[in-house]
């Protein structure tokens, strides 16, 4: 009986496992394989070589303590990612908190959640182009600032800058943070909050000692969404940064365009490694907090 139900469960999991194996694990294995192949100017050579990796880090040791291109790029990407993560976390948590604890009507909760999906109603390209009349030299924001005599000349850093990249990414991914956190919050028994109040906890103490720890799963899931997407992004960074900002994803794109597939694959593996380290570190961090 037990064995039979076990077999059924395995059979039920089989289709998804197959899809993952064929469309995720296999390509990933191929990327890792290609990353250790040799290559020259116009073709890749199926023979073992560390060139994909060594070329990427070329001259890095010699330049120390100055950071070489790839390290600078990664540092830049991690910084960007951290900024976007922090902002989406703050915004996502706040919005989720408002929806979960301040909106009492179920219908209104659903309606407001749907409002948060509005950034996804248009395609990525249209959305990014739409920022130009908003943030450009003669855009709405600059005209408003000048009309109000806050600035004399148009503000330059609004568009094609780190600011606009972060703005576009935060605009898009706050929802990915908000939804899992909202989900965690809705599972919190309201009696727990009353019990905390009964024990003399202030609003802040309830947030710190009850709500945030119980939202941990949602925070971690949302963080994984945001970090993995932002670390690998090159389109938004490219368009909103006016092709002026280097990113880890951009390195891969450049290599692919140069048909240096082993080098591109090697960079993809490096990016994967860095992203996984960040996520593992993050979940550790959250776990340690719980021990206090």
């Amino acid at each position, binding site marked *: 009986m037990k064995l039979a139900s076990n077999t059924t469960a395995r059979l039920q999991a089989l289709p998804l496992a197959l899809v993952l194996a064929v469309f995720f694990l296999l390509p990933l294995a191929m990327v890792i394989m290609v990353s250790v192949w040799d290559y020259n100017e116009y073709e890749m050579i199926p023979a073992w070589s560390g060139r994909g990796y060594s070329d990427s880090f070329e001259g890095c040791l010699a330049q120390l303590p100055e950071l070489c291109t790839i390290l600078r790029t990664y540092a830049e990407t991690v910084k960007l990612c951290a900024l976007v993560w922090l902002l989406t976390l703050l915004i996502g948590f706040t919005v989720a908190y408002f929806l979960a604890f301040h909106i009492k009507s179920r219908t209104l909760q659903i309606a407001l959640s749907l409002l948060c999906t509005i950034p996804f109603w248009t395609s990525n390209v249209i959305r990014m182009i739409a920022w130009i009349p908003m943030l450009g030299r003669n855009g709405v924001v600059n005209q408003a600032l000048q009309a109000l005599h806050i600035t004399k000349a148009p503000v330059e850093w609004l568009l094609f800058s780190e600011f606009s990249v972060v703005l576009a990414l935060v605009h898009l991914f706050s929802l990915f943070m908000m939804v899992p956190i909202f989900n965690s919050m809705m599972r919190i028994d309201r009696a*727990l909050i009353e019990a*905390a109040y009964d*024990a*003399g906890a*202030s609003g802040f103490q309830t947030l710190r*000692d009850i709500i945030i720890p119980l939202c941990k799963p949602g925070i971690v899931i949302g963080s994984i969404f945001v970090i993995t997407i932002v670390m690998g992004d090159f389109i938004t960074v490219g368009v909103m940064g006016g092709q002026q900002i280097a990113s880890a994803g951009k390195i891969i794109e450049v290599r692919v365009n140069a048909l240096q597939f082993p080098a591109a694959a090697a960079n993809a593996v490096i990016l994967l490694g860095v992203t996984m380290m960040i996520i593992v570190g993050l979940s550790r961090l959250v776990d340690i907090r719980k021990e206090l």
Partner: protein
Amino acid sequence: MATPAPLELIAVTKRYRATLAVDAIDLRIPAGTYCCLLGPSGCGKTSTLRMIAGHEIASEGDILLGAANITTLPPAARGTAMMFQSYALFPHLSVRDNVAFALKMRGIDKATRHRRAGELLELVAMSAYADRLPAQLSGGQQQRVALARALITEPQILLLDEPLSALDPFLRVRMRAELKRLQRELGISFIHVTHGQEEAMALADLVVLMNAGRIEQQGSPREMFNRPRTAFAARFMGGHNVLRRADQQIAVRTDHIRIAPTHALRARVTELEYQGTWLQANLALPDGETLIATLTEQQFDAAPFGAGDEVGIAWDDDAAHPLV
């Protein structure tokens, strides 16, 4: 622990928009009393408890604890503590941290609050489980932890919201005895909300029966059972027949109804149930009124009868209580 103080409710009213949940009740609970707020669902007993706890603020009236007016104080400043119906233990904290929570909120250092939590866990015989998470405990154990958590602030009054309703019947009787023992040992007041009259009678020094936002009757369990003031009280406390005689209603305890062939008042036996200690006879009078008589086995054997028989019934004059 803390010095016990009497609690007084003066014309306390609670309105939720148009609905009146609690209607100007007056109640005095002496220090060190086990008080049960009893009544059917929606009678206002839970609203009353929550107003005493500070989780609802009274729309009108005053709540005094000792000399202090606590009507609008936050829960932690009142000297009360509440034990929640579903226990509301913090699922991410160990048993020890759950119990120590209120002390942590007051900024008491870790060593001190863990020592105090240890003492309270000892009180409820849960020391061995201090490092577990609530999910790893049974219902009865969770309840003990919830009790310890509520008691750590040394409240003058412990408020319990249907504390036994989540337990199975066997455990319920055991936890009941334990609550009573704890209340006696601590010497503070317990205010316990329940809809079970049996629970209230077993535990309470003072039973407060509520109906439709008002106090129907209050008194010791024996007073409540032997002298119900209204038909509602007689029916809710159980064990009574409410009968209409001439121009008023009377209550007669089911075990005070005597059955013999010779009695003048005739009744037909519609049902006869053997219940071990008792036999219960459901009776119908000629005018359609029904009543219940309970007899001991001895009484029954002296003059046995069966379902469908016609019997005579009677009761002593002083067994009949006029109801208002």
